[in-house]
């Protein structure tokens, strides 16, 4: 019998299993969440040249980089939110590494989000999805596809005078996903919550409910249109930051090529 890992390696090298990059490039111009200015803000990604094969270091080039734990495509740990602050092992360095590789399902909300910036992921949509694909598997990542990752410039945060407008889940949708005992929830927008998520009860339901239940978040994901509804494997390992509440990371998906 062939070893499973050998099979996986062969499938990867033959292209039967494709590796999809779900990550945006860390770029100083990539939007971050904007809070009222009297609050502390999320640091933008910055890169400072230390040397470039010059008098500062003749044979090497390197940069100092700085950013927030929540800049770019990033992972949210339970202790990110007040509801998860007492979760044991809730910091990125404490989470069991087995949580970083696992099954992923994708709920396609792109048609709705295309016509309504405040499009909501509701329990009804999840139940419809389950009617087609079977129940959301326990301990799987659930990603909300909106194609929001294709937006650029001011359209990404889509800030208006009454705050940002971008799609996200309702509290009831998150509660239903928690009943399915998912591993975590991910989005293409700047946060796991809708732009107007502060007006739900509880405010920011994805953050509040997921992290309160010890679940994880992924945001600013890219290329979700390249994933199947079910059957892919997600690799999302945050940096091992002591006491970290989150981390920028490279998110990859393993996808079985059609017909293989």
């Amino acid at each position, binding site marked *: 019998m062939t070893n499973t890992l050998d099979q996986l390696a062969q499938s990867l090298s033959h292209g039967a299993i494709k590796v999809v990059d779900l990550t945006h490039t860390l770029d*100083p111009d990539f*939007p971050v969440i904007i809070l009222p200015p009297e609050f*502390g803000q999320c640091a933008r990604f910055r890169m400072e040249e230390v040397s470039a094969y010059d008098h500062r270091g003749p044979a090497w080039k390197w940069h100092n980089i700085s950013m927030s734990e929540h800049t770019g495509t990033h992972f949210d740990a339970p202790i990110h939110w007040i509801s998860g602050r007492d979760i044991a092992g809730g910091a990125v360095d404490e989470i069991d590494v087995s949580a970083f590789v696992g099954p992923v399902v994708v709920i396609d909300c792109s048609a709705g989000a295309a016509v309504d910036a405040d499009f909501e992921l509701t329990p009804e949509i999840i139940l419809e999805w389950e009617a087609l694909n079977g129940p959301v598997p326990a301990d799987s990542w659930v990603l909300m596809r909106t194609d929001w990752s294709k937006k650029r*410039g*001011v359209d990404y945060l889509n800030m208006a005078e009454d705050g940002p407008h971008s799609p996200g889940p309702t509290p009831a949708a998150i509660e239903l996903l928690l009943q399915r005992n998912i591993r975590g929830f991910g989005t293409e927008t700047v946060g796991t919550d809708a732009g107007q998520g502060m007006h739900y009860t509880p405010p920011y339901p994805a953050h509040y409910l997921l992290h309160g239940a010890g679940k994880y978040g992924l945001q600013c994901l890219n290329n979700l249109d390249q994933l199947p509804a079910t059957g892919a494997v997600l690799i999302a390992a945050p940096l091992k930051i002591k006491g970290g509440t989150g981390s920028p990371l490279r998110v990859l998906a393993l996808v079985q090529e059609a017909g293989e």
Partner: protein
Amino acid sequence: MTHPLTPPPKKDPQRRTRVPTLPPASRSRAALGLTAAAAEGRFALQHCTDCGAVQYPPRDACCKCLSVDLHWQDTDPSAKILAETRIHASPDPYFRERLPWRMGSVKLAAGPVAVCHLHGDVGRGEQVKMALKLDKAGQGVLIALPRERTPDMEDDPSLRALTAHPKHRRVLVTDARSPVTLPLVQHLLEAGASTVFIGESEGWRRWPERDRLAALERVEILPLDLTDARSVAELAGEIGGKTDILINNARFIRPGGVLGQDTVFARDEMEVNVLGLMRLAQAFGPAMASRTEDGTNSAAAFVNLLSASALVPDPAFGGFGASQAAARSICQTLRAEFRASGLRVMTVYAGPTDDTWHQPLPPPKVAPKALAHAVIEGLCEGLEDVYCGDVARDMAERWKRDAKVLEREMTGGGT
């Protein structure tokens, strides 16, 4: 009659850009009093405390009574031109390039006779108004100006070399979102600036006033984020060679002292107000310094808007005050570094500004329009230090008189 300056022709790319030369820069310590007064646009001369004599040129002792108790005092600038001459030969490289050069002797109403530069609209026997201006070497020199404004008088070549007038110059204003930007740009255009480039950080964030700026003619909004070295370098790569005046109005400010404030805001204040200024200077400075003799639209000034808390902090803005003191220090270093080029570094100090971060404070506060006006006036007058508004002027005066007393008053204990 001054001939009005015409818009400069496009640059001939086959000609080498003229390398800047400077007028003689050495001065005695006593004579630097002229420079200090010129930097602020004051006409001050040495007065003897013992006998009251006013003397020029400055010396270490009174020319009447030999007292060494001399002080600098703002003085009546009225004078009469006794004689004038036109110099046709000079061994000095700076003046050789500008011959013939008019000079004259004037009898000051305050007493002394002085040799000085002459504005083109004044001549022998005329009553004039004397001014102290910084020359290209950054030293205070005397120039006789018309008593009343004459048409296009700022276009006189002798006077224009002593100022950083925006007329026909291309200006970069670094922060589009600042409340001072719109009035500043309007004033610059009125003063004759040919183009105003405006830096916009984080184009991915909407802001309502953008449309008003974008609608102005001769204005271009370009991406610029002072906290991002690459962004600064990219814009300098594009427009660094045609930036004649750079006005840095980017500012990060949050209220809070030192004990009660964490270092996150303080870091942002340092990133924008201090390191951002350094990045700008590093990216734009060399090209500007190489173009100070580039004709009508030569590079003229590097301007930084500061708070008067650069002199002494307001404890309600502890981290911000530190950033302002640091920025002031950087401007002073830049002044030394740009000295050989003749590029002027102008610092504009304002008291609390009338904006969201000073909203609960009582007046007086500096309105954006007033700040914009002070910047333009400083450029037109060729100043190095501008104090905008009563608070900044009063703080500067008290700071010069006794910095410790001012510190005690600003930090509690004075009534």
